[in-house]
């Protein structure tokens, strides 16, 4: 992924949006109707012919509105492409911001038997779906769309929100022939932008608008126009084991950096992380919320005492108490939604309500606790070179202790009190509230371990096995989330896994005690695999990896496995009377920085010990490692499922 440096928008060549776009509704050459597939991507279900956007500022009663216009033309090739005729426009509404979609128009063109048929979208056939208190979407379906149709639509979004100028995605899930974004700047707002996923633009022009001069207050000015264009952008195709499409799409991201008022004064909005940190710490729903939360310490902690506890033990205890007092409502956010007093009363809130409150309580206990802003795995990564607050969608707390920095999150009762949930394991987080902003790695290097012990007895064509499993860290979290203390559910899963066996004595230890590994045990009895005079035993039964999860023949993106893993299997097999060992798999020992595997079988008298340990040492493997990683999985699947063969030495 390539990121260009931050650009601040200003410069000096004359141009106009309308002249340069070279595009009008309905002006479509016959070649587009005749096109049956896109030659550079013959499987593409549709093709974006033009996607043109423009943001500009419009004066209205002494203030500016941001006007975003978009015009898009798409050729539909197949039925799968019909989905592109269903269009959704997000609209934001909060406080004084009331976004509105205006000037909606849409057309569908079909050309058959020498006749052009144009169907017009009736704007009254558009609907607003309310998503939540802040977001809604304006939706419409273009009429009379079939494979072969060309659709085009345009709309304008009018907003008071100048902080996030409309971003622009050059890339879509279908290929794009030409995508262009024009921004017309006033002297009063300065924006920074970053380009993700590409080095450069095919078109980049910047200059003074050649229209009339404008006035705002006593200031006379001409708009500065910046145009960004790209050609022949391939379709983005998702893959398994990636974090978020947001990390990979080619797009432009804008953020307000300065406000320059008519008197010549300049207000830096978010030019540095330092400034952003200060802003947040002064914010009523962030820094001030934490301070107010400190006052709830006594109410929350009550009679609990932490005498003699180390700082890290104290942190865990407090996190546990907060978790038992309040509940996450499932919503993300980087600022609280109300006052701590209200939060305590309703006992449920978004991530920021919960974790900023936690930060306050930790501070109330005399600990050095700080809020940490981050972006969750599904939300994309944070670009640390660019101080854009909208990168973040989540807050956790970090505490300085003698044992080092501990990051905590009170939204999940199934996650250990000194761990953050897997959704937060995404690159870097920003610690706020210290003298300077500090970045902390959110990647988790400790491998999540799973270990199995098998005790296998064979007699008269039957196998009896006792199995113990233990899972730590995020593997424990995964099982806690899946089964908790539900032995019945676990037994049902085991019964479906071992079709011809009887599963008994299923027990679970530490189902919710997150400070301990998650453990379960079961007993199994069932027929042994027998062919002629030989017995075939899978020493690790059905508990190892059965197939390679990496089945693509090539890979375009890194493989993100969230956290490193280690698995250990130990089986003891008592040789039955009248049988000898016919075949044992060869030992293997292999290790490098990415992967290690160790397999050995040892015979001591009538006891066979089979051991397998393997580890994937990294959470993220670059795409160049894909074939090696796939190879490791293949070898692992083979070795882990090899059978021990016993042969009858006499009639059993």
């Amino acid at each position: 992924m390539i990121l260009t440096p931050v650009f601040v928008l200003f410069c000096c060549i004359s141009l106009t949006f309308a002249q340069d776009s070279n595009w009008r509704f309905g002006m479509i050459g016959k070649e587009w109707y005749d096109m049956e597939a896109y030659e550079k991507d013959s499987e593409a279900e549709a093709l974006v012919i033009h996607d043109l956007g423009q943001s500009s500022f419009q004066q209205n009663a002494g203030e500016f509105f941001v006007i975003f216009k978009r015009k898009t033309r798409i050729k539909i090739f197949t039925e799968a492409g019909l989905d592109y005729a269903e269009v959704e426009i997000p609209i934001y509404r909060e406080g004084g911001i009331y976004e509105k979609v205006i000037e909606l128009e849409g057309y569908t063109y079909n050309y058959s038997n020498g006749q052009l048929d144009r169907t017009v979208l009736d704007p009254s056939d558009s609907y607003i779906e309310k998503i939540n208190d802040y977001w809604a979407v304006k939706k419409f379906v273009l009429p009379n769309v079939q494979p072969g149709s060309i659709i085009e639509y345009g709309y304008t979004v009018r907003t008071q929100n100048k902080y996030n100028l409309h971003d622009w995605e050059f890339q879509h899930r279908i290929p794009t022939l030409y995508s262009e974004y024009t921004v017309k700047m006033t002297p009063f707002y300065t924006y920074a932008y970053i380009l993700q996923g590409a080095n450069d633009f095919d078109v980049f022009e910047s200059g003074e608008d050649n229209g009339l001069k404008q006035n705002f207050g006593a200031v006379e000015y001409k708009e500065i126009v910046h145009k960004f264009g790209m050609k022949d952008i391939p379709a983005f195709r998702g893959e398994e084991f990636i974090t978020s499409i947001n990390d990979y799409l080619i797009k432009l991201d804008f953020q307000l950096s300065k406000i320059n008022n008519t008197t010549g004064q300049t207000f830096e909005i978010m030019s540095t992380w330092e400034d952003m940190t200060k802003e947040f710490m002064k914010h009523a729903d962030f820094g001030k919320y934490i301070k107010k939360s400190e006052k709830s310490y006594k109410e929350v902690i009550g009679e609990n005492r932490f005498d003699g506890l180390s700082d890290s033990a104290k942190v865990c205890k407090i996190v546990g108490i907060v978790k038992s007092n309040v509940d996450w409502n499932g919503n993300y956010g980087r600022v609280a939604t109300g006052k701590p007093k209200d939060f305590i009363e309703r006992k449920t809130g978004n991530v920021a309500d919960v974790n900023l409150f936690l930060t306050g309580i930790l501070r109330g206990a005399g600990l050095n606790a700080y809020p940490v802003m981050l972006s969750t795995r599904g939300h994309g990564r944070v670009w640390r070179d660019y101080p854009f607050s909208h990168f973040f969608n989540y807050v956790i707390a970090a505490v300085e202790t003698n044992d080092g920095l501990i990051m905590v999150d009170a939204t999940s009762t199934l996650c250990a009190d000194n761990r953050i949930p897997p959704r937060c394991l995404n690159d870097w987080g920003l610690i706020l509230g210290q003298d300077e902003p500090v970045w902390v790695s959110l990647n988790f290097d400790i491998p999540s371990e799973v270990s199995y012990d098998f005790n296998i007895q064979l007699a008269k064509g039957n196998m009896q096995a006792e199995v113990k499993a233990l899972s730590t860290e995020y593997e424990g979290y995964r099982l806690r989330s899946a089964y908790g203390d539900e032995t019945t559910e676990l037994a049902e899963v085991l019964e479906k896994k071992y079709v011809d066996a009887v599963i008994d004595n299923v027990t679970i230890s530490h189902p919710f005690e997150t400070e301990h590994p998650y453990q379960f045990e079961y007993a199994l009895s069932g027929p042994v695999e027998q062919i002629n005079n030989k017995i075939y035993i899978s020493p690790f039964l059905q508990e190892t990896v059965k197939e390679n999860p990496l089945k693509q023949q090539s890979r375009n993106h890194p493989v993100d496995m969230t956290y490193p893993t280690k698995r250990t299997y130990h089986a003891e097999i008592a040789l039955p009377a009248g049988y000898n060992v016919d075949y044992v798999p060869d030992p293997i020992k292999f290790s490098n920085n990415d992967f290690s595997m160790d397999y050995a079988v040892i015979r001591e008298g009538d006891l066979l010990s089979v051991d397998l340990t393997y580890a994937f040492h990294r959470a993220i493997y670059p795409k160049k490692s894909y074939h090696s990683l796939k190879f490791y999985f293949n070898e692992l699947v083979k070795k882990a499922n090899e059978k021990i063969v016993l042969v009858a030495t006499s009639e059993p």
Partner: protein
Amino acid sequence: MLRYEKKVVFNGREVVTYNFCEIQINDPSGDCYGEIQIPYSSIYRLSDVVAVITDFAGREVRKVKKKEMTDRSAISSISFYEDDFIREFKLKHNTYPYRIRYSYTITSKQFITLVRWIPAIDIDIPTRSATLDVTVPANTNIRCQLRGVSRPDTLTDGTDCTYTWTSSYEGKAGEELSAPPALALLPEVTVMPEHFYFDKPGSLSSWKSFGNWVCELNAGLDQLSPGEEARIERCISNTTDKREQLQLLYRRLQEETRYVNISIETGGFKPYPASYVAEKKYGDCKALTNYFQSVLKVAGLESYYTLVYLGENINPVDTNFVVPQFNHAILMVPLDGDTLWVDCTSKAPLNYVGPSLQNRKAFVVDRDNSRFLDIPPLRYQDVVQTRKVHFSRMMNGKVRGEFTTVYRGGEYQELHYYQRNYHRADNEYIIRKYFTARGFEPMGHEMSFPCDDSAYVVLNVEAVSPSFCKEYGSDLIFNVLPMNLPRFEKPGRRVNDVQLNCPVVLKDTLEYRLPPGCAFGSLPEQVSYDSDFGSYSLTSRVVGDHVEVIKEFTLFPGHVSLEEYDTFYDFVFACLSAEINKYIVFTKT
């Protein structure tokens, strides 16, 4: 649920329904029942929402404030837009057990039923006490349908008559394989007046009167422009054969229109006009059906707007009780003595009746002659899945498998949908993930629909497995590729009867080529089971240079009661056991 009360008051013009729930949350796993969602719309107006948290003893902990309640659109996954909304809020306390109480009122001037009452919040959550009061003017005739609820007490004060039902629910187990539909397991009371008003006045005195109301609702919606009529006539101008005409028009419908559900106000029952679909080329099931009926009318072909309850798990319509029990519209076309069922949202062949439509009652709307007809069940030949695989061991020890599978029934529909609606890369992912034998890595696939009029798909997959054949000393051991048989709960765990809606028929022909330098070793033994519930067989033999294994599994459709479940399970378990741990051994020479 401790208490669930519903009070319905009908004054002859509008229905006012007061709802009250009290739920006890015993531990954190029950917190989800404190996440309250109340549906409403412009027709079903919501008011007087009150919510309170109390402790175990019933002492009020706090009342939910209005600002804590949020509203959002409620649009189902099958719809593009609906003008329904949900008011939601969360009731949460940190000391268990705690209780939540909430109440609200819904008012509506348009209704068909007065109330449909299911006194349960979830299939596995018990309800201690539930009461339904329905008050109507004393001169109003009402009818009710009861399932698992006793007849009501009646109180008349001269002006009004109040009916009171009481109920409770033990809470049955959650999801089980092939269980009857969840709704059929819950107690239920449905009450309706003889006369109702929903867009138009109607009567539920008979299916005939209900059918007439549907006719009224659809009246005048069949108009098409002269241009559209001319196009229809052009489309069939080359043939006078009615079946061929129907075929041509259905293909035109499939090519030109698509399913988009936009439901506004009475849109849950009333179709958009045919002219709307003709112009937009989209609509929901009602709109597309109404449109196609209009098209057929122009062509002079007789057809009937028909209502059904769609779903693979059949929820039988109670024909003794006149109340709408449908969720889908199709067209019934009588043609040359045949009855054709035409789903206007489908892209499958004409008269294709898939698992979601087969074997159920269909309500054929016909003024003064509305009636139920039976949609026929799927037969064995309609659902049989045949798989032929040729395995050969390569020089590197991996096994190459050439899979040719013919899918019918549900899998046909799925693949048909994916192929039409997904990009090839997405199809590759689906084939890799769901349609490739475990342990095999697909190298390529081809999907073909050999004939427009046949409801099956042929999927060819070429795949490689590094572990399908294992070498142990001088033995090369191949697995006998298992079939994907249903895995039912063990008898002690099963709570519900089994409802098998259509037959399951799987046929495998597996060919294992003799690896170079090897001789034939052992083959799996023959297996054959026959039972009242189905059959299973496995045979193997050497044919030329390969071993051939033929397997067949059949599960009959029908109902298996809990009393029969042990025997049923024994059969299924025997088949599953026969499928695993089966090997073919070749010996190095």
